């Protein structure tokens, strides 16, 4: 058992635990915190796979910014514990079993399919961040610019939705 595997196991366990906790937690704040845990664990996994930049972004943007937003909203809305209202029958009797089935089945298929891929052929790249930058501003400059529009839309959205009624 290599170090990598050990770390993977630990991080994966944390991630899964976090995810389950997200589901089971009754207070939204707990859920949010669980999600942050998952994200951080994932950042670790990115690091393990040599994706340093992404790992950093994951922590900064995702865990740092987005989740803070979530927490902020939860606080703002003063969301309390989840009510236990009646289930929608469809969601209860079909949805949950199907979702569990899908989880298992996906995991199975993905594992099955990925094993066909074999191990990576080349070692993790050095200076990946630089190459990433190149990719981002050359080959993928279009999506990049498009994300600008996306953010514009988001801004516009918050303005529209958040504006006090005049």
């Amino acid at each position, binding site marked *: 058992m*290599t170090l*990598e*595997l050990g770390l*993977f196991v630990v991080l*994966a366990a944390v*991630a*899964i635990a976090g*995810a389950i906790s*997200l*589901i089971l937690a009754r207070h*939204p704040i707990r*859920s949010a915190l669980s*999600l942050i845990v*998952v*994200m951080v664990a994932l950042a670790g*996994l*990115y690091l*393990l*796979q040599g*994706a340093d930049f*992404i790992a950093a972004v994951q922590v900064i*943007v*995702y865990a740092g910014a*987005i989740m803070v*937003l*979530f927490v902020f*909203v*939860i606080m*703002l*809305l003063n*969301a309390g514990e*989840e*009510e*236990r*209202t009646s289930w929608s029958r469809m*969601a209860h009797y079909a*949805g*949950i079993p199907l*979702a569990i089935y*899908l*989880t298992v089945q*996906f995991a199975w298929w*993905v*594992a099955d*399919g*990925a094993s066909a*891929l074999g191990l*990576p052929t080349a070692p993790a*790249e050095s200076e*990946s961040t630089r190459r990433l930058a190149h990719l*981002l501003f050359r080959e*993928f400059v279009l999506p*990049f610019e498009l*994300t600008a529009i*996306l*953010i514009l839309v988001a801004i516009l*959205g*918050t303005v529209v*939705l*958040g504006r006090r009624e005049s």
Partner: protein
Amino acid sequence: MVSPSYYLTLSAILFGLGVIGFLFKRNVITLFMSIELMLNAVNLAFVTFSRQWSELSGQVYVFFVIIVAAAEAAVGLAIIILLARNRQTLNVERINLLKL
């Protein structure tokens, strides 16, 4: 070196848990968090495949996904706030004016 299939299996499990969460939760905010969880699972898959194929574009995609997630969060939370203000509830089960 850990086989990519481990990572991918983990990503599938997390994705599935996100799906389960979406069904299981009632608070719209946590519902939304479940979606975030799914996106994170996707990101993990992207990163893994990126390494698998020695192709950095996978990581670029993750970058985009994170941006998208951010934008979505902004809009989504704005909608949720609006709704919570108008209806005084966050329970998705109670939001059923439109039906049949």
